[in-house]
């Protein structure tokens, strides 16, 4: 039998024995970005379809989570930076080949838009709300008049944000687990699904919940389809990607991935949603919470596992 032994005279923190430079901040940030993208996408969609009355939670209330999610996500990203005081360098240049630059600029646009969106519904949530300054009242009136335009921009930016959370990882060809173009659409769909779950949880109308859970079932279906393709692609690719897939097919991430992401995060909530649609009474928070946790675990698993995979030489 041929044996091979590598000894490297190197022991750099977070690089050796295997890469671990991104900790909890990045998966949390990717998750919150996806969640925000999901909520804003459907808020925009139902506004454009003129369903504000029927889909109140989706259009008006769930977006209130977004500014918090984005600010928290950006804060996590900031915590991850090692050269923190220089973070503003992100905004001195636009680099088209860098997904991180795309993300930084997208967030620069979508964060204020989410604030504006929420501000236009402030008076509906708090009837006594007053903007105090005349120019703010004028700005609010202007934004309310142009809600549909904002909704279009918001939807497009939400798609870029959702896809970006996946491309951020898939652009690294040095990490075989990430280096697949399916990751962009997969993270987008996963983000849309978590966004729907959040809206569903906040909704009090039976009709709205029904529409959302139907949409969510479609998202879960697409997500499972993409995950199957992800593994099919890995298993028919080169050695390094076969080994990357092995981490989930018997390797150290098998249990956490199949139990928490696939079964508890996708299949079980889908079954509950189907039962609900069939007329069984199931508390809405159970499938919603499971989907939200599943999405979070998915990001953590992908970021953690991807850093272990590498080229062999």
């Amino acid at each position, binding site marked *: *039998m*041929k*044996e*091979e*032994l*590598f*000894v*490297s*005279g*190197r*022991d*750099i*923190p*977070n*690089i*050796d024995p295997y*890469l671990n*430079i*991104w900790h909890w901040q990045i998966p949390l940030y990717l998750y919150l970005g996806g969640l925000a993208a999901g909520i804003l996408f459907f808020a925009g969609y139902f506004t454009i379809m003129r369903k504000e009355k029927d889909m109140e939670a989706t259009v008006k209330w769930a977006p209130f989570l977004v500014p918090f999610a984005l600010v928290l996500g950006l804060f996590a990203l900031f915590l*991850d*930076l*090692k*050269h*923190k005081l*220089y*973070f503003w*360098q*992100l905004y*001195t*240049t636009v*680099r088209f*080949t*860098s*997904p*991180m*630059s795309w993300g*930084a600029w997208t967030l620069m646009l979508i964060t204020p838009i989410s604030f504006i969106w929420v501000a236009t519904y402030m008076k509906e949530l708090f009837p006594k709300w007053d903007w105090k300054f005349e120019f703010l009242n004028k700005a609010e009136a202007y934004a309310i008049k142009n809600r549909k335009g904002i909704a279009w921009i918001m939807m497009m930016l939400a798609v870029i944000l959702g896809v970006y959370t996946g491309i951020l990882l898939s*652009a*690294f*060809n*040095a*990490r075989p687990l990430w280096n697949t173009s399916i990751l962009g659409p997969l993270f987008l769909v996963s983000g849309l699904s978590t966004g729907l779950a959040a809206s569903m949880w906040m909704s009090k109308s039976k009709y709205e919940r029904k529409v959302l859970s139907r949409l969510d079932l479609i998202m879960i279906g697409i997500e499972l389809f993409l995950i199957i393709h992800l593994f099919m692609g890995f298993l028919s690719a*080169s050695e390094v990607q076969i080994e990357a897939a092995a981490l989930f097919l018997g390797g150290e991430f098998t249990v956490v991935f199949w139990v928490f992401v696939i079964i508890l995060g996708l299949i079980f909530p889908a079954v509950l949603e189907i039962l609900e649609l069939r007329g069984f009474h199931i508390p809405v928070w159970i499938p919603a919470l499971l989907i939200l946790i599943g999405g979070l675990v998915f990001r953590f698993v992908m970021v953690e596992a991807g*850093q272990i995979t*590498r*080229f*062999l*030489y």
Partner: protein
Amino acid sequence: MRYAMAIDTKKCVGCGDCVVACQTENNVPHGYCRDWIVENVTGTYPNVEIELRSERCNHCDNSPCVRCCPTGASHIVEGGIVMVTPEECIGCGACIQSCPYDARYSHPEGYVDKCTFCKHRVDNGQLPACVEVCPTKCLYFGDLDDPNSDVSKALQNRKWKVLAPEAGTKPQLYFLT
């Protein structure tokens, strides 16, 4: 001009002098290194073969670290040397993730650091510190476009390989085998 390095794996004894010379020359913080030795043992005892490699940043022609840098801190200077500007680096770690050779690390001060082919020495007509000190003279440095440079001559009559060519990075460290 295209700077490159050739490493003779048959002459290298793995003494680690290149590592220490680099740490001293570049004031690399304790516990970190810009170059390192890899010992690759293959076969079954008693028929074993050893390959010793002095590795560092490959200063790739198609460098993923430069491509993914969101601020332009990672950039390529004349001669194809990949450099990092500490004042532009935000320490996001994208370049560290993108490197198939794990040649970059996060400096304790926050920015990302790596081998510079000792640009400050090369600009003055000197050789990189690691090349200068190698006791077996197994490192060759120079301009690939110049047929009379040390590295061009070293590559002329020998078989060589690069690391992980399938990563598509077009690395510029040539290992003579």
